[in-house]
């Protein structure tokens, strides 16, 4: 029940908010609700067993029996932190939008909560159709958030965002339905259950693009790549970010982009092991290109928000690089980088929103010398900048380090290029920082009629949790990594024949897998050999997947 | 149509007879109307030609026939001529479907005292009478006169509107009797009141077993609707003199006018006949059954053939008495009630009668269902 409560409580909140009669107390109510949701999600820790790689807190009910569609939720190390990230960001977003959203407050908060349900559902659903519903549902509130509360070109941006994402999702839906059909062929009973999908052996032919697994792989990968977004598919992101209101940008960057990477982690890599291995080079290439390209383009942006948006493209490139390195470093790093990006880019957007509230401009050239006027703001911005450019002791470093290490282990050449991102990241962020905060006060900053006020108590309250997280995650990454360790180890070791068990259902066979000491030699070779995958080289102790 | 050539021949003759009966009723009715109006309005009415002015009928007929054939310039000739001809049809065809007496059994032949028997009689009658609207429209439009057209449109709208109430008021009757067939309905109204309810048989010798006691509302509605259907006062908006000169037949005169007259009176007769059939036991003598009358006739003449003929004649007389009574009511109403305004007419039709008819239908359905259950 816990997961259902976590997922659907925001929907209830949205309903209450939509029906709430008083506008004045609405924000407080929403904040309270989001805090309730956050603390509820914290209680997952109490019930979660970090030593197990299996799905936990499972809820499974038959939904549409004929097609084997079920109401199936579960949590494991891969989704745990993303769920918490979502619930953690929501109170912050609501508090951050306290003053910036002035019209249709009711609708806005309702949208936020619906969005929260959709995102949590995406992370927790283990059934393909169920997942897809949440996946698509997440578009709708976002569409409205950008389209109603956005900037001047909001309609263009929101339509672009919607159509881009939708276009990818359609292929994914087709692939999902085809896989349901495959389950019927394999077992006689149609099923959209992810665990059943895992059991499928989809034929893979190395050289041929038009072979089954490759096509399915690309159908899924395209949907997720657009959502992430990966390099050539990223152009919706800057527009959406620039036009979105601050909370919209935060959710978009903080959580929604993670839906794509999570999709890779949960769906693509385990479902299509051979194809993803065969095509890993492509995705790593895209990731690397994205890192460098995003950084370069970010460097020359005249708009702060657009700069951060392109930096997201760059950061997401790291994540995909990590995921497709298929080793513990890369995967853990990728997972960690998702959280980092959520926290630090979210914080960046909040900060940009705060300055935008004051000056109503995001033009870099109009700023300058802000550090002298808004010292507190500058400090926070600097800390977040450090996190974004992955200075050690902040969260960004851990993720980036692990990703690059994982990549280097597999394909050093990509790592050599990817470290350019480390340099360029510093270049564009610090250049922007220099132009905005240093130098002579710009036209917006020395405006005598409207003196700028430094952060007030509410804004500090918004930022402090984020800064605390930045350092906490930077200094004690183990406290975070340990929770996802079992799942990631399990994924790495059994990638060629992935399965997931339900916690407590057949506990015994799953246990030795986790206990196995991770030795580098035991991992499957990551050379992209087009050979059909031999019976898994790892000692797959789960002889029969638990029914 | 019949099994043998003989029967077919008889039936054809019957049809002609019914038609002639109707046509011949018209002058009588005209006379009655004029005399009746005089009586009601405390004046004499036609009294110069013949005794009681009866010869006035002949004089009128001569006048009609000898009048000039007149076609307006703007008229559409075909329709202008066709309209009065078609005006005869609905009344005649419908009247032919009404049983006027108990069947005459002669030898192995059975002759129904009606134009033809139709299983779904009510439906047929309604269908035929609904065609009347064309006549009016054809006449109105064909005259090429805007008053005519206005009158025609009013009349046809009125006809269609009241057809709903009319049809719906009959649904209750149909449900109660469980048949469309008029003969069966009449059969069901024989004798004194007696009906089955909750498995009990309830009877009363005080009242005849007439439909009006079971469906009073339907009777009222039906009767009112027939007034509108036949375009008579108080619903004769189509020919409101003050507004539309004479409605759709403004441009008509002479023989064509006569045909319209016949059509209108035919309507009246159909309405009266249906009233009698649905609600007043048809050709049955009150408190008696057809069988009783037949036995009585058998007691008088002895031979079954003749007894059957006698009882048919008696029934025919009874039917005609009832018919005459209703026709008189038509006339009576015409000369006593003022004319409605058009919107009042429509309001009455759509907002009063239609809902009541609907209510009647529903209540009847519920009651019929409830009563048929036995506990």
């Amino acid at each position: 029940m816990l997961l259902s409560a976590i997922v659907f409580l925001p929907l209830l909140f949205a309903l209450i908010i939509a029906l709430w009669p008083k506008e004045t107390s609405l924000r407080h109510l929403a904040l309270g609700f989001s805090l309730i949701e956050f603390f509820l999600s914290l209680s997952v820790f109490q019930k979660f067993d970090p030593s197990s790689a299996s799905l936990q807190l499972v809820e499974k009910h038959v939904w549409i029996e004929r097609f084997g569609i079920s109401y199936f939720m579960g949590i494991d190390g891969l989704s745990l932190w993303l769920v918490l990230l979502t619930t953690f960001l929501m109170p912050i977003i609501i508090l951050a939008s306290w003053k910036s959203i002035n019209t249709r407050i009711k609708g806005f908060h309702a949208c936020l909560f619906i969005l929260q349900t959709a995102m949590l559902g995406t992370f927790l659903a283990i059934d393909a159709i169920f997942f897809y519903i949440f996946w698509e549902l997440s578009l709708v509130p976002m569409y409205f958030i950008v389209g109603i509360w956005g900037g001047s070109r909001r309609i263009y941006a929101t339509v672009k965002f919607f159509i881009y994402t939708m276009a990818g999702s359609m292929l994914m839906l087709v692939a999902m339905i085809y896989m349901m059909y495959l389950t019927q062929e394999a077992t006689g009973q149609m099923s959209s259950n992810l665990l059943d999908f895992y059991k499928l052996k989809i034929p893979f032919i190395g050289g041929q693009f038009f072979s089954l697994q490759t096509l399915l792989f690309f159908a899924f990968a395209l949907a997720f790549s657009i959502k992430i977004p990966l390099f050539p598919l990223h152009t919706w992101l800057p527009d959406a970010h620039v036009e979105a209101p601050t909370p919209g940008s935060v959710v978009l960057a903080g959580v929604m982009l993670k839906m794509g990477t999570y999709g890779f982690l949960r769906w693509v890599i385990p479902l299509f092991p051979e194809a993803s291995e065969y095509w890993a080079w492509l995705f790593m290439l895209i990731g690397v290109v994205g890192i460098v390209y995003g950084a370069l383009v970010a460097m020359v942006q005249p708009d702060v928000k657009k700069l951060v948006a392109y930096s997201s493209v760059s950061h997401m490139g790291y994540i995909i690089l990590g995921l497709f390195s298929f080793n513990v470093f890369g995967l853990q790093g990728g997972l960690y980088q998702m959280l980092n990006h959520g926290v630090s880019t979210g914080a960046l957007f909040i900060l940009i929103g705060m300055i935008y509230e004051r000056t109503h401009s995001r033009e870099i050239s109009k700023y300058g010398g802000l550090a002298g006027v808004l010292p507190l703001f500058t400090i926070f911005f600097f800390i977040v900048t450090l996190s974004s450019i992955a200075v050690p002791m902040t969260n960004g470093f851990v993720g980036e380090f692990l990703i690059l290490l994982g990549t280097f282990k597999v394909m050093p050449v990509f790592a050599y290029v990817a470290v350019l991102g480390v340099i360029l990241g510093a270049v564009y962020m610090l250049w922007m920082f220099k132009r905005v905060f240093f130098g002579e006060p710009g036209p917006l900053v020395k405006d005598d009629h409207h003196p700028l006020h430094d952060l007030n108590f509410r804004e500090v309250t918004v930022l402090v949790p984020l800064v605390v997280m930045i350092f906490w995650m930077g200094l004690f990454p183990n406290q975070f990594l340990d929770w996802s360790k079992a799942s990631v180890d399990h994924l790495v070791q059994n990638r060629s024949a992935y399965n997931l068990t339900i916690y407590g259902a057949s506990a015994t066979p799953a246990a030795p897998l986790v206990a196995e000491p991770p030795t580098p030699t035991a991992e499957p070779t990551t050379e992209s050999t087009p050979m059909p995958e031999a019976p898994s080289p790892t000692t797959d102790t789960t002889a029969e997947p638990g029914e | 149509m019949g099994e043998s050539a003989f029967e077919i021949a008889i039936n054809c003759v019957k049809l002609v007879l019914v038609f002639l009966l109707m046509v011949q009723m018209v002058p009588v009715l005209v006379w009655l109307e004029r005399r009746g109006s005089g009586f009601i309005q405390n004046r004499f009415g036609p009294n110069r030609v013949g005794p009681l002015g009866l010869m006035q009928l002949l004089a009128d007929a001569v006048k009609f026939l000898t009048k000039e054939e007149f076609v307006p310039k703007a008229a559409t000739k075909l329709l202008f001529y066709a309209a009065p001809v078609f005006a005869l049809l609905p009344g005649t065809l419908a009247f032919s479907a009404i049983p006027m007496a108990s069947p005459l059994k002669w030898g192995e032949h059975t002759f129904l005292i009606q134009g033809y028997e139709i299983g779904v009689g009510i439906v047929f009658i309604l269908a035929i009478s609904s065609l009347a609207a064309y006549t009016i429209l054809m006449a109105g439009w064909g005259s090429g006169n805007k008053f005519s057209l206005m009158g025609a449109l009013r009349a046809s709208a009125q006809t269609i509107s009241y057809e709903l109430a009319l049809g719906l008021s009959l649904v209750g009757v149909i449900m109660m009797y469980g048949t469309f067939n008029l003969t069966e309905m009449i059969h069901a109204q024989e004798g004194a009141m007696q009906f089955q309810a909750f498995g009990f048989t309830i009877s009363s010798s005080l009242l005849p077993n007439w439909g009006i006691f079971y469906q009073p509302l339907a009777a009222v509605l039906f009767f009112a609707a027939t007034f509108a259907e036949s375009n008579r006062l108080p619903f004769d908006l189509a020919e409101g003199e003050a507004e539309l000169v004479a409605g759709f037949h403004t441009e008509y005169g002479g023989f064509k006018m006569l045909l319209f007259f016949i059509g209108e009176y035919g309507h009246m007769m159909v309405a009266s006949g249906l009233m009698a059939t649905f609600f007043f036991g048809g050709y049955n003598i009150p408190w008696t059954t057809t069988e009783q009358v037949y036995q009585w006739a058998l007691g008088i003449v002895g031979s079954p053939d003749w007894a059957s003929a006698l009882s048919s004649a008696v029934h025919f007389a009874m039917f005609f008495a009832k018919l005459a009574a209703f026709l008189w009511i038509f006339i009576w109403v015409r000369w006593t009630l003022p004319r409605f305004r058009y919107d009042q007419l429509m309001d009455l039709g759509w907002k009063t009668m239609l809902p009541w008819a609907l209510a009647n239908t529903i209540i009847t359905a519920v009651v019929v269902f409830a009563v048929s259950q036995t506990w």
Partner: protein
Amino acid sequence: MTADIFLFWLLASVTLLSGVGVVLVSNPIYSALCLAMTMVGVSAIFATLGAYFIAGVQMIVYAGAVMVLFVMVLMLFDLKTEIATFSRGRISGAIKIAIVGLLAGLIAGTFAMTTTIAGKPETKEKAGHAAKSLGELLFTKYVFGFEALGVLLLIIAIGVVGLARSKGGTHAKH
């Protein structure tokens, strides 16, 4: 040639001729009257096929109500003979006529060449009886369709009233 056969040919020719009249006559009022005639003919054909109740309903609904409406409307518009009866366009007209012809040929030809599916039914039900079983069928097997049609009619009634009413309604308070 029995009466049935005679009746069929009579009614068929009447129906068909008046049907063609609907399409060809350039005065829409005559068209409408032709259609009314067709309706009556069709009703009669129903009757010859033993569907008396339906025949009656056909008369009431089509001939008595629907067509009257048409005629009324046409008369209200006071449309005389039209200047251009048929749509413009030689090519499309040719195509349309070709389609009509082809379709007629195809369907009629098909029917003409196939043998009768079923012979004549032996039982000849009484008309009233048929109506009763019709009602039973309507309220059991087809009850959903029946109810749906009821709803449809209600909606249509409301919609038509909404469409037809002039500003302020029939009883506008001035």
